[in-house]
């Protein structure tokens, strides 16, 4: 017995799909979405740029070219220049150990790597004050309540190497808050990829480094880029942790976000928004690169989405 294949109904009489909503519900939900995102995302973003140019191009240029803004920009770049590569090397090493090998305590290790994300930025700054501050473990030896490492304290004092309220403290606090970014992108990605390709390369005679550079790295490049760009955005934009350890010495220990705060608190709103517009631009570039990396690698996106704690 043969049955005639069912003919599709013409569009005009095709019933509405049972798995979609009436058009007025769709319209309402789209309207709510546009309204909510417009109010909370688009309006603030627009207002950064509009207020930045509120007193014209010349004022904008002057706020950006201000020597204090320049030194803040340089410090921000320097901080990210330390934090991003260090956390990147750490992320690759941690992901290699965790994804390619079996060992006890792996889950604990992954949880510990995520720890900095769950700690308030202010507390992150505080811990470095407790370690390196005048009365901390590695603080001024003469005045220390508990001299923990006398030789190190003496050495630091002798070389006048200040950490808190100076650049090293800012770098350390930034490394802390951006610590998990690269590792947490790469671990699920490399776990999903398994180890067969690397094993094949080894069997064919490649050395360990060759295997890493020629097999692993090309496989993880989009995930790596993704982690690095997010790590960089946070490193350049970190405010709370850096604020605790910086000491707010203008021209010396103010990063761009701290300079924005200084300008805002001195009621120079237009200049504050001019400098803030640079950071907003960084955020937009980050979103573009992030979306691009996601499109290149779907696995990256799903791993990020299941663990969006940062």
């Amino acid at each position, binding site marked *: 017995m043969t049955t005639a294949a069912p003919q599709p109904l013409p569009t005009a009489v095709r019933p509405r799909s*049972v798995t979609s909503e009436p058009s007025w519900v769709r319209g309402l939900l789209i309207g709510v979405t546009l309204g909510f995102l417009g109010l909370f995302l688009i309006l603030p973003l627009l207002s950064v740029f509009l207020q930045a140019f509120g007193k014209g191009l010349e004022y904008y240029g002057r706020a950006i070219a201000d020597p204090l803004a320049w030194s803040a920009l340089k410090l921000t770049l320097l901080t990210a220049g330390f934090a991003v590569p260090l956390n990147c090397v750490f992320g690759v090493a941690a992901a290699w150990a965790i994804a390619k090998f079996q060992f006890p305590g792996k889950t604990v290790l992954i949880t510990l790597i995520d720890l900095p994300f769950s700690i308030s930025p*202010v507390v992150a700054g*505080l811990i470095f004050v407790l370690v390196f501050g005048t009365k901390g473990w590695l603080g001024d030896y003469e005045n220390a309540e508990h001299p923990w490492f006398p030789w190190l304290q003496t050495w630091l004092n002798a070389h006048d190497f200040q950490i808190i309220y100076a650049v090293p403290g800012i770098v*350390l606090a930034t490394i802390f808050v951006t610590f998990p970014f690269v590792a947490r992108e790469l671990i699920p990605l490399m776990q999903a990829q398994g180890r067969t390709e690397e094993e094949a390369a080894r069997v064919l005679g490649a050395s360990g480094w060759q295997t890493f550079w020629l097999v692993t790295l090309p496989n993880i490049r989009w995930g790596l880029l993704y982690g690095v760009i997010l790590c960089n955005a946070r490193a350049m934009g970190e405010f709370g942790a850096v604020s605790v350890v910086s000491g707010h010495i203008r021209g010396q220990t103010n990063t761009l976000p701290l300079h924005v705060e200084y300008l805002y608190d001195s009621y120079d709103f237009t200049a504050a928004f001019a400098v803030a517009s640079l950071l907003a631009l960084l955020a937009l570039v980050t979103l573009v690169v992030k979306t691009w990396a996601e499109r290149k690698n779907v696995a990256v996106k799903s791993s990020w989405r299941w663990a969006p704690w940062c």
Partner: protein
Amino acid sequence: MIFSRQRSVLPGFNLTLGFTLFYLSLVVLIPLSSIFFKTSTLSWAEFVRVTTSPVALASYRLTFGASFCAALVNAVFGLIVAWVLVRYQFFGKRLLDALVDLPFALPTAVAGITLARLYSDNGWLGGGLAHLGLTVANTRLGIFVALTFIGLPFMVRTVQPVLEDLDAEIEEAAASLGANRWQTFWRVIFPMLTPALLTGIALAFARALGEYGSVIFIAGNIPLKTVITPVLIMGELDSFSYAKATALAVVMLVVSFTLILFINALQWWSGRHHGQN
């Protein structure tokens, strides 16, 4: 090879694990342990006095209350946003989808000053709201607004992938059994989204508890009224009361560690829930 296991053809285990543990200890664990050493210089009675002072209690109430309200509002609107982004087609959808992550990418200080200006008395939104008798800047409402902004992506990004993976057959089955669209959503789709929604709420809540940069500008930081716990810690630090600051930090750490455990349990549950479909 430091653990007894099968010999591996892949090299670098000792090197990478060793470096990982060294770097983790140096950057995270040792500095973090200073908190507990510092707290131990306080007696138990002192610790309790600092962490349950009226100022501290007021700051907990505010921080928890505002974070929770913001997480709940995000649960409602985040679900709608995720639904619309997954299911409907409209002009500018991909742009909006990418913009959802703006609160992650935008430095908190920039978000803070922007919201503070928008909602100030002569700001774009503050002026209009003032006519309605609503003051946002320098009030608890302002803190709520900032925390809603910060929490938005957590909600959307946890619900979105679950919605994407939902099988259309389940909805078709519900419809063929006579359920209308609302019944299908409420009794079939929503229960499947519950673990993701709870995870999203917990993530947004956890992030909001520790938030500093986006709140301080709009909060006005009026003692006992609009001082959140991180600002209180900052104040103690500014007056060099490290022990007091540390005691408050311990309270925050204990809360966030509890939340991590809760979120891990939720993700495990939702992973199982998800796997069964």
